[in-house]
């Protein structure tokens, strides 16, 4: 008890020493006065009494020291003194301090920014109540190992029946769809969710209620943002109506900002309790679930897997190679970006490492400039531990200052990352990226580790100083001997090597990106305006209802195309469902008459992308027609069904045969044979990085159920975006219920390679930073070396050496370092470039141009960094150099 009390008081005394210091001085003064009185009483003169009193103490200051030792903690006092001394010392060397703090701040800032993103996206738990109990259920093919997010409707119903594993299960599907509101139509992120959806997430509405089973296909819940921008507020939205796909939904609840799943959703519309499509071969539904109490993710997966085994026996055609897996929602959200983020983190960590090496070098150089000061201190009795402590304190002060500056840089860096990155790379959970305690802790930890990392070696090195030798050396500077110069050389080599690793990986990403932009796509991107359009249609393909309505919508779009052609500046127009690099995609199996039958296990059938296209679509996009004809205005629903295939599909299924006249069937929406009437060139569908593959094109008008939502393409003779207003007006005039959204084909293609562009830009930035640091490091070391040898050079010049000889002498040393650094760097780059393999396109890992390009830029820079100090040294005036103390 009394020990604890004493400990706390000592601690308090360390923090606030001033008061007890005053008290002690007062007490000692009183003590001395009493002693003096006593000595005077014994007959001494006042003067003699005072001296005698002071003698009774072994020294007033020593007493104070003893007292302080007992009162507080010596080592803490020492640390504080070291820190205070460090701050004073550093303040006297502002140039050095600024260089070190800035260098480190760059490294720490970059790391903190990257960590903020990783922390928010990957590490932080989701904000939902009991978020770790929320899982997604995925479909996995046991033969190929491929996992897909969508489940078949029939399978979903079996999953939902597993009450022993799940407390709640909900399917959902959707995306950006046209929604009709009182003030017009627009594209809104809309999800059709099974009524249990919000039970899975456990989020309470901020206004209104969540769904109950009666709400199916009648009620909707909207986001707070949507309620505010369209109805003025959460409460005002209740009871209002939104129309989706021609069906009115009444708003019964408003969700707080916390609810943001799936990303970018503003309207959750209640879907039927059971999926509309209940077969086991069409995979259309995503599934989320909340684990039942006491059931682990593994246990749930095990149950799903045994259930999948039963289904496989019961339905071998559709389910023979299928199983289901439960994965925590958070893991699923970040699975696609995790590796990119960690590669980036590794890259910035390298930058920090290089910055540390640089700073260690600066400190070494400074330590040797201070070796006399340190030797004097050692001679006056400072122990080795003391000197190391003091140098470490300086490192710590530097690192903490750098950490503070770095944190500021990181805030700027993070918002830049998010601002630019979010546009190009759809990162999940961006809302969760903040400078929170995790980030602060990370920065503090990085700063301290950095301080020890860059401070320890030079400190130990410097503390080994030989007192007698250093003091007897003439001149204001001592030198730290061979050990320190080896360390310094090693640091420069490490910097060159590490920065080369980054630069070469950046070079590979850059070359890969250039290859991407140079790839022929199979269509012409320039001068094409793209309008996403969706008209309300009530039809359902599953019960074949509303056919007349969907056919009417098809006619509407044909009329729209005709009207758009009248706009001055429009060269040609067409429409498609499944534009290259666009938002909609569909694919599946097909059969060619006489070669396959359509049915049974679909996965033995050939595979192709399914696209719908209007007449004049291929012409407008510049996709070459190789054989036969394009779709025509007469290819309507009541006419013979036709199709156009891509070159790849023809090769895949018909070899050398002429495809024209063959009949083909696919699982898109009808089971009619379609006659192939044309062959078109291959395109890269998803992005320039995708391989051109088999595509099956069908006329929009013959597949009316899917054709109310399409991408209009408008080739223009003027700037495409200048026609947006005119196009919007024309469409509105014909049907105000059509939702519209514009982009250009060029933008669309650019966006599709945004992720590699972003990666390349980021890694290039890091590599540039690293290279600059390495160059600065080389410069600093060569400057130091040449300064150290000034008198030697003076002597050489006095003995007849010419300037060029001196430059050569210095450069010989630099070249040795460079050679070792480059060799190491190349070896490490070869070893590490495997990490970026998956991010490369069109070039090999050993791409000669990337390696050569990097070396061509880097080598001259580093050599120049060494040459400048060399030339300066060569200009030395021998008289001055020799006379210099």
């Amino acid at each position, binding site marked *: 008890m009394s020990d604890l009390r004493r400990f706390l008081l000592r601690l308090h005394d360390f923090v606030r020493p001033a008061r007890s210091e005053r008290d002690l001085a007062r007490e000692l003064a009183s003590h001395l006065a009493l002693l003096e009185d006593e000595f005077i009483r014994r007959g001494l003169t006042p003067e003699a009494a005072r001296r005698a009193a002071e003698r009774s103490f072994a020294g007033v200051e*020593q007493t104070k020291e003893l007292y302080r030792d007992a009162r507080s903690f010596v080592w803490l006092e020492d640390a504080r003194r070291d820190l205070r001394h460090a701050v004073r010392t550093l303040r006297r060397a502002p140039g050095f301090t600024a260089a070190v703090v800035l260098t480190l701040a760059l490294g720490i800032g970059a790391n903190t920014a990257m960590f903020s993103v990783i922390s928010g996206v990957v590490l932080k738990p989701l904000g939902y109540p009991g978020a770790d109990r929320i899982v997604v259920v995925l479909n996995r093919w046991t033969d190929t190992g491929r996992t897909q997010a969508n489940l078949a409707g029939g399978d979903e119903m079996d999953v939902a029946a597993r009450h022993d594993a799940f407390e709640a299960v909900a399917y959902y599907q959707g995306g950006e769809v046209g929604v009709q509101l009182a003030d017009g139509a627009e594209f809104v992120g809309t999800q059709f969710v099974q009524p249990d959806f919000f039970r899975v997430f456990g989020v309470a509405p901020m206004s209104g209620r969540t769904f109950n089973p009666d709400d199916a296909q009648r009620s909707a819940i909207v986001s707070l943002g949507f309620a505010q921008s369209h109805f003025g507020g959460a409460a005002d939205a209740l009871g209002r109506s939104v129309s989706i796909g021609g069906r009115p939904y009444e708003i019964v609840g408003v969700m707080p900002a916390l609810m943001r799943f799936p990303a970018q959703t503003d309207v959750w519309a209640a879907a039927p309790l059971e999926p509309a499509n209940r077969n086991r071969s069409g995979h259309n539904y995503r599934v989320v679930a909340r684990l039942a109490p006491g059931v682990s993710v593994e246990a749930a997966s095990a149950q799903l897997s045994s259930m999948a085994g039963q289904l496989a026996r019961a339905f071998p055609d559709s389910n023979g190679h299928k199983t289901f897996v439960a994965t925590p929602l958070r893991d699923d959200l970040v699975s696609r970006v995790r590796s990119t983020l960690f590669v980036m983190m590794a890259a910035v960590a390298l930058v920090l490492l290089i910055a540390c090496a640089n700073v260690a070098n600066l400190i070494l150089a400074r330590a040797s400039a201070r070796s006399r000061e340190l030797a004097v201190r050692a001679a006056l009795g400072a122990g080795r531990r003391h000197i190391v402590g003091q140098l470490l304190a300086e490192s710590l002060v530097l690192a903490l200052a750098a950490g503070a500056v770095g944190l500021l840089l990181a805030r700027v860096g993070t918002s830049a990352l998010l601002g630019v990155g979010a546009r190009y790379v759809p990162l999940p959970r961006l809302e969760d990226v903040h400078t929170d305690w995790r980030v602060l802790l990370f920065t503090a930890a990085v700063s301290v580790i950095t301080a020890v990392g860059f401070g320890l070696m030079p400190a130990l090195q410097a503390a080994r100083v030989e007192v007698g030798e250093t003091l007897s050396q003439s001149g204001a500077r001592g030198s730290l001997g061979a050990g320190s110069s080896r360390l310094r050389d090693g640091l420069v080599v490490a910097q060159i090597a590490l920065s080369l690793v980054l630069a070469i990986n950046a070079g590979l990403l850059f070359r890969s990106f250039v290859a991407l932009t140079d790839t022929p796509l199979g269509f012409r991107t320039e001068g094409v305006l793209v309008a996403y359009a969706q008209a309300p249609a009530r039809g359902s393909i599953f019960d074949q209802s509303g056919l007349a309505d969907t056919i009417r919508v098809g006619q509407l779009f044909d009329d729209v195309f005709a009207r758009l052609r009248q706009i001055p500046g429009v060269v040609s127009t067409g429409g498609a469902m499944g534009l290259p690099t666009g938002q909609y995609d569909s694919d599946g199996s097909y059969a060619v008459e006489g070669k396959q039958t359509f049915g049974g296990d679909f996965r033995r059938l050939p595979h192709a992308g399914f696209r719908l296209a209007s007449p004049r679509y291929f012409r407008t996009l510049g996709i070459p027609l190789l054989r036969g004809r394009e779709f025509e205005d007469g290819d309507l629903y009541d006419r013979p069904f036709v199709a156009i295939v891509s070159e790849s599909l023809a090769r895949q299924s018909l070899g050398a045969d002429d495809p024209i006249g063959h009949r083909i069937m696919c699982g898109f929406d009808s089971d009619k044979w379609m006659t192939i009437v044309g062959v078109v060139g291959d395109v890269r569908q998803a992005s320039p990085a995708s391989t051109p593959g088999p595509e099956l094109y069908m006329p929009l008008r013959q597949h009316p159920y899917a054709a109310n939502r399409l991408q209009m393409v408008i080739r223009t003779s003027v700037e495409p975006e200048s026609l947006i207003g005119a196009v919007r007006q024309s469409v509105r005039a014909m049907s105000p219920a059509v939702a519209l959204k514009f982009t250009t084909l060029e933008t669309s293609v650019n966006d599709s390679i945004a992720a590699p562009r972003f990666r390349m830009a980021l890694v290039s930035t890091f590599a540039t930073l690293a290279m600059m640091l390495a160059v600065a490091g080389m410069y600093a070391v060569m400057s130091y070396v040449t300064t150290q040898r000034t008198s030697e050079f003076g002597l050489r010049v006095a003995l007849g050496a010419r300037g060029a000889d001196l430059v050569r002498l210095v450069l010989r040393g630099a070249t040795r370092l460079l050679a070792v650094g480059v060799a190491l760097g190349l070896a490490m780059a070869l070893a590490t470039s495997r990490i970026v393999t998956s991010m490369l396109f069109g070039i090999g890992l050993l791409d000669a141009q990337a390696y050569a390009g990097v070396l061509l830029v880097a080598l001259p820079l580093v050599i120049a960094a060494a040459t400048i100090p060399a030339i300066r040294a060569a200009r030395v005036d021998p008289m001055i150099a020799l006379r210099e103390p």
Partner: protein
Amino acid sequence: MASGSKERVELLQGTLDLIVLRALDTMGPQHAYGLAARLEQVAEPSLTLNQGTLYPALVRLEQRGWIKGTWQRTETNREAKYYAITRAGVRALRRQAERWRRLAGLVEKLLLDES
């Protein structure tokens, strides 16, 4: 501060604390000078006390809550900090004295056996 002095303090620590507590217990509140004078008087030939060494003992005891210091006036009208033993201090003194006696007895016995 040289590390030598630290060793001496540690050597004296237990005893000095005990002596101070005992002095305050029998004499009543005392200032540091009074304590030092008393100790010199009692111990005289065997111990010449550096008066400064009292201070670490005083701060230790005060931090443990065994003594308490207050500023007062002496008979000669000087201000001085008077230390008084607290109730916890009295208890501690009893414990420490007992321990010390046992230790001293043990050491005594051992020394007798050895010789």
